[in-house]
């Protein structure tokens, strides 16, 4: 009988696997829970970099995510903008990965603004606080162009000032006095594709780079982070969750002894306790545990099955 049991464990029909997975990823969503967590270094550096921006500084943001990765990228995008808005930053957004990306980014910001309106907070206005420079096909070449000759690359691109026809983006407050990529104290890349590599190839060394990448890209991004080609990154859902926690409690804040999140490398970086910090990360992260647990159990089951089967064959 052992053999049979082994065989069974080894070869559960796929539909059953899939059904279990659906359950594991659905049910926990209805029961939000708080998960203890320690942010990873790279995310701390990422947060530190954002918080170190002087108020009102100009940031170049390459937004290369679309609906297909909204699960991860949208969370990162929202958190990053919540921070940028607090830093009163001015953001120039462009995309190089996907023609849809500019629209998706735009919609995400509009969504944020609607929420802020409801709370009667000042909105983050198009043209005055951020411009949408649009999509540049052929990422590799486009990023090269932007790195070598920003004026030329963005030249002739238009965006909408408040209820008036489109105008040249360089007229907007965001790009006032910007002529080259070095004029931005920071370049952010929120991407789900290898456009981050191109950014490293062309931009690193000209201006600091910070990435928000999807979980699958964490390994390759770690390479750049180690060789100090980028100052920090926020990887996958864990990164988003870390970021949300950092926003909530800062680093070594209010002081190192009592701080919830400590770091020897970084000084004190303030946080902004605010229920609004909790976003996708906080919503999805608990559920992720069940999914991962399921995965581990399945792998173990498979192996147990294999051994039982072997034993079965012998006897």
């Amino acid at each position: 009988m052992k053999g049979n049991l082994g065989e069974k464990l080894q070869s559960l029909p796929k539909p059953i696997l899939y059904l279990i997975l659906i359950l594991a990823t659905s049910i926990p969503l209805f029961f939000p829970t708080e998960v203890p967590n320690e942010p990873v270094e790279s995310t701390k550096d990422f947060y530190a970099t954002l918080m170190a921006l002087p108020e009102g500084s100009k940031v170049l943001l390459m937004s290369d995510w679309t609906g297909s990765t909204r699960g991860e990228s949208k969370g990162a995008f929202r958190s990053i903008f919540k921070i940028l808005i607090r830093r009163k930053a001015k953001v120039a957004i462009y995309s190089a990965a996907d023609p849809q990306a500019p629209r998706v980014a735009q919609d995400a910001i509009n969504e944020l603004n609607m929420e802020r309106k409801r709370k009667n907070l000042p909105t983050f206005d198009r043209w005055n606080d951020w411009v949408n420079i649009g999509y540049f096909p052929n990422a590799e070449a486009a990023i090269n162009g932007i790195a070598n000759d920003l004026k030329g690359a963005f030249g002739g691109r238009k965006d909408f000032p408040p209820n008036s026809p489109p105008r040249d983006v360089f007229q907007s407050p965001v790009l006032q006095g910007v002529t080259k990529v070095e004029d931005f104290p920071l370049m952010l890349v929120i991407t789900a594709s290898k456009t981050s590599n191109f950014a490293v190839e062309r931009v690193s060394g000209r201006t600091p780079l910070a990435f928000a990448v999807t979980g699958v890209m964490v390994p390759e991004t770690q390479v750049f982070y180690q060789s100090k080609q980028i100052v920090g990154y926020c990887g996958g859902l864990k990164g988003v969750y870390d970021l949300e926690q950092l926003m909530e409690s800062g680093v070594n804040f209010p002081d190192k002894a009592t701080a919830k999140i400590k770091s020897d490398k970084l000084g004190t970086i303030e946080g902004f306790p605010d229920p609004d910090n909790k976003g996708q990360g906080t919503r999805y992260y608990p559920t992720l545990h069940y999914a991962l647990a399921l995965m581990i159990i399945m792998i173990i089951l498979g192996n147990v099955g294999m051994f039982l089967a072997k034993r079965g064959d012998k006897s």
Partner: protein
Amino acid sequence: MRITAGVIATIGLYSVLWKENKFYRFFEHVFLGLAAGWTMVALWTETLKANWWDKMVGTPAETGAAATNGMFAYALLIPFGLMGYFVFSKKHNWISRIPIGIILGLWSGQQVQVWWNTYGPQIDATLKPILPTTWDSLIVPSTNGLTPEQLSQVQSQIYFSQAVNNFLFTLTVVSVLSYFLFSFEVKSKAVKGINTMGRYLLMIGFGAIFGSTVMMRFTLLIDRMHFIWIEWLRDGVFPMISGR
């Protein structure tokens, strides 16, 4: 309405997990159609308009923005593009190689340009010291409650454990790299050993990659589930029903 459509489409595509069926086939073709349509739109609105047409014919002056001149030479790209269409001609299909050749030429030229930018810094970052600079302690001492000076002192040292890690790191890079040497006949046991080790170390790396990737994949599934159960069912459908 919009969300409902999204949910149905999602379920339609999921149904392939059970088996290839008409429902899936329907949405597959809708998907392909929409995608193709979208590409046709984006082709002009996102690519050719700004990058080709406006540059070729120029743009008029507008509030704040100066007029730009047209550069007629861009028109030359039309015939080059057209050459691609000879691919279906039995006799002249070779002509389609010209536009391809141009694109490949541009690509290749860029490789020469970016190779060192990409790999130079990585080679540099691989050159890590593999002997400790201090023997005060074998591992990095805990840094809690140190003054900044002491801290920087500690950080500027290389401890035994770090040295070992650096050694492992370099070893991995080298052995993996040597595993990919194709044209050297490996006779000596030592080298063979290094290669197999390279392969094993590679597997550790792959395992780690797999782990980190799983997170993302599940996250996206969770997002879908959130979309179906919370956004659609709980916040969309229930209120509607209970409303009536």
